[in-house]
């Protein structure tokens, strides 16, 4: 008798547990307003990344096409993956001294692991995070970027 009783209580509990599970999925089925999916390419206009989002390393330029990079190469040594190459140029100053300035700040996005050590180590805060995240390209060479814009120069008060 007892075993028959357990047999039926087992069935009862099993069915009950199954129905609790079905209640959860059933509730979500009938509450489509709880859907969390984002419609990605359509919501491009309203999609705003957080300020701190690490999309890529950029070198901010001001309105006069001036940046803050001195070309010291600390970021190059700080980078664990060799994704930054700094090419310097020697120029002759008006007073006859030779001075190193930056020629090209080459950034290989394809090798970057977004650890942030270059930005943290930069003594003149020349680098920053950019919010761009759509990096897919058809040609790998396009992922190698030159961060200082053509014709740009170093900001006066940094250079001193």
């Amino acid at each position, binding site marked *: 008798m007892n075993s028959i009783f357990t047999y039926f209580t087992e069935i009862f509990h*099993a069915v009950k547990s*199954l129905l609790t*599970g079905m209640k959860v999925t059933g509730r979500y089925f009938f509450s489509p307003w709880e859907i969390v999916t984002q419609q990605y390419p359509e919501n491009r206009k309203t999609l705003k990344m*957080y300020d*701190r989002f*690490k999309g890529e390393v950029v070198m901010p330029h001001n309105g006069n096409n001036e940046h803050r990079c001195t070309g010291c190469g600390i970021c190059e040594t700080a980078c664990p993956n060799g994704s930054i190459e700094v090419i310097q140029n020697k120029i002759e100053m008006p007073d006859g001294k030779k001075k190193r300035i930056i020629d090209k700040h080459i950034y290989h996005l394809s090798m970057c692991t*977004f650890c*942030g*050590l270059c930005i943290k180590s930069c003594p003149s805060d020349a680098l920053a995070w950019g919010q761009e995240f759509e990096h897919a390209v058809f040609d790998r060479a396009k992922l190698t970027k030159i961060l200082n814009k053509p014709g740009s120069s170093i900001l006066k008060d940094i250079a001193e």
Partner: protein
Amino acid sequence: MKEVINLPVKNIEEEEYHINMGPQHPSTHGVLRLVVSLQGEIVKSLKPHCGYIHRGIEKMCEKDTYPQIIHLTDRMDYLSAHINNHAVCLLVEKALEVDVPERVKYIRTIVDELNRIASHQLWWCSFGMDMGGLTCFFYGLRDREKILDIFEESFGSRLLHSYYTPGGLMMDIHPNFQKGVKDFIKYFRKKIKDYDDLLTGNIIMQLRTKGVGIISKEDAISYGVTGPSGRASGFACDVRKHHPYGVYDKADFKEILGTAGDTFERYMMRMYEMRESMKILEQLIDNIPAGDYAAKMKAVIKLPAGEYFQRVEAARGELGVYVVSDGNKTPYRMKFRSPNFSNLSALDHISRGVKIADLVAIGGSLDYVIPDIDR
């Protein structure tokens, strides 16, 4: 007249039937290859073949400075990236005898616990999927998204953060961080009931996991099965309790120990742990002291010659970092004792004599992350 060829007669019953689970297989969570010898549906023995994602992180560490190593540890157990970072940071701070500000300790502890919850949520969804309940996967990921949003707002990335540096943090937390965590706890306390309704209480899930894949306490210790999987067998291995770091000694939380050591107990340990982590978060989130977010460190970090060991409790078990330093800015030898590596070594022992469907469930409950095994 053709000669009659006598083919050797083999007893089919005695022949072993090997199947490959992985490296490409829906249930191995990554590129792990398990060569399973079957007899019918029953697993006779099992040989794990690792190395499909071996990147030589230990060798790479020998060429990197200590701040650079941090971003490599992210890529071991990518689901508990913060906790891996924490291990290396603590080790460097211990070796240099640096006192990090109290604020840093609080933030690190909070972020570690958030990371633990996120990791367990992902475990829950993949475990549900291993059991065949696909819906779990989406619920778990939906809730994990909330934590990733908090991470993204404060640290800028969602999975591999490199947020800790030796001596402190990369940057201070975002002003919205505390509010975000509190909102998340409120939200997740509601949603975790769905988890229980959908999977924990389910009779099919209980029948499939109870009494399956048992590992005794002695075996768990001997195999070095740590983390929730070890605690399910009654092995008190919570590093947060026994060798506290961060501010875990100030937080009030329980180290929950199981007894049965089966798949269901391992499942329950993680469900409890998510709740315990939320308890820790609730205690700490309002008490973050003001102060610096990093201690003053030298520009080039050189550890004094000698050897150092640091243990932390990662989401899947005990993570140990062993460093032999010769006084240079790069370590002489760096060894990671990864939790999944030891947990995997017990898989053969656990899964002998179970059915092939149980093997998938056991694998899910051990929750291995392959890059952490291979490193």
